């Protein structure tokens, strides 16, 4: 029902079968590389890697492009700010407007960098179910000294699962309340503020009740933030170690070459 909310595309590729931890680490390393990419050659190499990995994952390219849509206006905005506001050799001048070559280059550089940051992250989310990513994050943050804050990594994983469940619930409740108010004669088009509060107040009250019920349910089942077995147990396979080894070699090469 809320498939629009998840970017996961089922598949059977090598990338799909990698452990979420491997993929999370790989995306982080890739983000650092992209972050530091300056020259045209580096950006082209990154683009090459993306095309290869996306091909192996077997996910349609349009899925990845879709992940760019929410940010597209912002890319354009950033690009034009650089183009028109940078100082340097002007391409042409009409009144106040003078785009510069320097601006064109930095603008392209910044926007491509940002586009690839999002594209690489979308490979992770397109090939891994949110539940698996949650388990992966839980396992990765387990060694952190979270007990000083007074929580465990399992608490955080539980909170993530709860939130993932809450989001569609809130959407459904908001829709229901909206229809209920409409059937009572609420005009949502012309009365923005009143309609907003007419949905918000019942929504908050009903959600508060649900949250309290969940807390009582957890308490009566003796929830304690300690180790729990999961429906999706993670397992590092040979392929994961090979990928991690490959990433480490690349990082080392990069550090010593530059």
């Amino acid at each position, binding site marked *: 029902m809320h498939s629009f909310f998840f970017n996961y595309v089922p598949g059977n590729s090598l990338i799909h079968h990698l452990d979420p931890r491997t993929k999370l680490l790989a995306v982080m390393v890739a983000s650092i590389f992209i972050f530091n990419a300056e020259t045209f050659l580096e950006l082209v190499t990154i683009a090459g890697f993306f095309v290869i990995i996306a091909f192996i994952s077997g996910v349609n390219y349009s899925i990845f492009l879709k992940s760019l849509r929410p940010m597209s206006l912002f890319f354009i905005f950033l690009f034009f700010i650089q183009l028109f506001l940078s100082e340097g050799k002007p391409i042409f001048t009409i009144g106040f407007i003078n785009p510069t070559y320097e601006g064109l280059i930095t603008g392209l550089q910044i926007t491509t960098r940002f586009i690839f940051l999002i594209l690489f992250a979308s490979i992770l989310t397109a090939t891994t179910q949110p539940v698996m990513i949650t388990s992966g994050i839980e396992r990765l943050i387990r060694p952190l000294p979270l007990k000083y804050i007074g929580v465990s990594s399992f608490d955080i994983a539980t909170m993530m699962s709860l*939130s993932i469940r*809450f989001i569609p619930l809130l959407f459904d409740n908001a829709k229901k309340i909206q229809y209920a108010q409409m059937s009572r004669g609420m005009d949502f088009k012309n009365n923005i503020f009143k309609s907003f509060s007419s949905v918000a107040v019942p929504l908050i009250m009903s959600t508060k009740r649900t949250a309290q019920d969940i807390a009582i349910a957890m308490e009566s089942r003796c929830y*304690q933030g300690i180790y729990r077995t999961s429906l999706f147990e993670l397992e590092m396979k040979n392929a994961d170690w090979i990928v991690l080894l490959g990433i480490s070699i690349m990082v080392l090469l990069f550090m010593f070459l530059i």
Partner: protein
Amino acid sequence: MYSDESETNIIGSSEIKKMVFASLFAAMTAIGAYMKIPIGPVPITFQVLFVFLAGSILGKKWGTLSMIVYILLGVAGLPVFAGGASGIGVLFGPTGGYIIGFVIAAFVIGLLTERVKSAGLVLNSLYMVIGLIIIYTLGATQLMIEAQLEPIEAIMSGVAPFVIGDLISILIATYITTKHEL
């Protein structure tokens, strides 16, 4: 697996309630990105409202955690960041500073609210303003560095358009915090 360490942080009953509400606030911050009132050139969104509420209602520990969970939801691929974006990439990108600012703002607001028992409207709104300044500072700084903008440009594009909407959020958040308790 039931080691001594993990037994020391068994969560108490009032803590469970706060934990569930922290998850709820993470979910609401996510939905806040979709709740828009289309007035003026930049639509007013309600993300920061829930950041303020998380800090002031849940306190520093659970308020901060709820924002961390919100970020992790985005990392896990749910389109919870502004405009429906997701992924680690957004955090490293030019707009990532605002999202990191949410965590610190919730922490600071929680810290300040816990210091004074039952603060009034004025004090509460002051805390929220401090939180908003933190979000703006971090957000504009990262925008400035990553998009290679001048400070003025960063403020004009990354702070000025949102001020009015966010001040409205502060009003609502102050009202709710002063009138209601968890």
